């Protein structure tokens, strides 16, 4: 399948997700379960996508583990998006500079 076809499919789905609530849904969802379910979806998805992927993304697993711990700690103490991302990058850069020859 061509790359542009992949991109087009993803765009069609993601645009529908974003625009349909703005154009069609004019009242809050009534089902408490559905609202709760949708509330938790982003956190579960992002958590599942972060670990163990972050450990596998680095040349040495230890660097990924350290990035996860450092990033989570900075985020926990109120670091901004950019700060947290930069912390993870910095930890991996320094550790791999020491460990990878």
């Amino acid at each position: 399948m061509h790359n542009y076809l992949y991109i087009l499919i993803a765009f069609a789905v993601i645009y529908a997700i974003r625009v349909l609530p703005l154009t069609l849904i004019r009242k809050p969802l009534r089902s408490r379960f559905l609202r709760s379910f949708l509330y938790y979806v982003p956190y579960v998805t992002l958590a599942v996508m972060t670990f163990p992927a972050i450990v596998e993304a680095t040349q040495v697993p230890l660097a990924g583990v350290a990035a996860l711990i450092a990033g989570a700690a900075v985020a926990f103490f109120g670091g901004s998006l950019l700060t947290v991302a930069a912390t993870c990058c910095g930890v991996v850069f320094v550790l791999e500079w020491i460990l990878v020859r």
Partner: protein
Amino acid sequence: MKQAKGAKSAFAEGVRDGIPIALGYFAVAFSLGIAARDAGLTPLQGFIASVLCTASAGEHALFTLIGAGAAAWEVALVTLITNARYFLMSCALSQRISPEMKNGHRYLVGAAVTDEIFGISIARPGALEPKYHYGAMAVAVPAWALGTALGILMGTILPGRVVSALGVALYGMFLAIIIPPARKERSVALCVVFGFLCSWAAGVLPALRELSAGTRTILLTLGLSALAALLFPRKEEPDA
């Protein structure tokens, strides 16, 4: 006249608030570009994907699926799952849109409901001003697309250490989104911890590890979110 002046300053404020977002996007998009390069996308394809989709996790999943030669239905389903949070954000935004707002504005505002642009738009008091949203889009979206294209272009000439360092930026961004609410709410903290544990377990357990990473993400998200909704139903909140 008064309305036109107000609209113009709303756009300028959107640009101003969009600049820090654009800087962050550029760095993160660069690492996204590295993932796109691994999947075999050209810089132009990455640029177009980022202009159209403006989604970190969603595009990361898309590029992973392209790299794996996934089926069309898999791309559609994974895109639906990884971007489900935008559905929620748009639902929240819809409550802040004035009933008189034209449909054209709704279609344009919807094009860039990202975590950060949504964040600054919803943080503004009163009804949503489309021009504020457009101002933030005008700086953040090009930075996002340019970063992706440059990541694809330059990922190859950077040393491996720099590539894997930038590669974790995206996961850092995910942490920045999930950890603060996990600190505030025990239910979210449990979602994050069990998300980590189950994701790891699913990659190791005999039957589950045969499935693609995308399919595992779908199954774990549906299962754990449903469980969380049953155990910790949300209280009535008009818009949180």
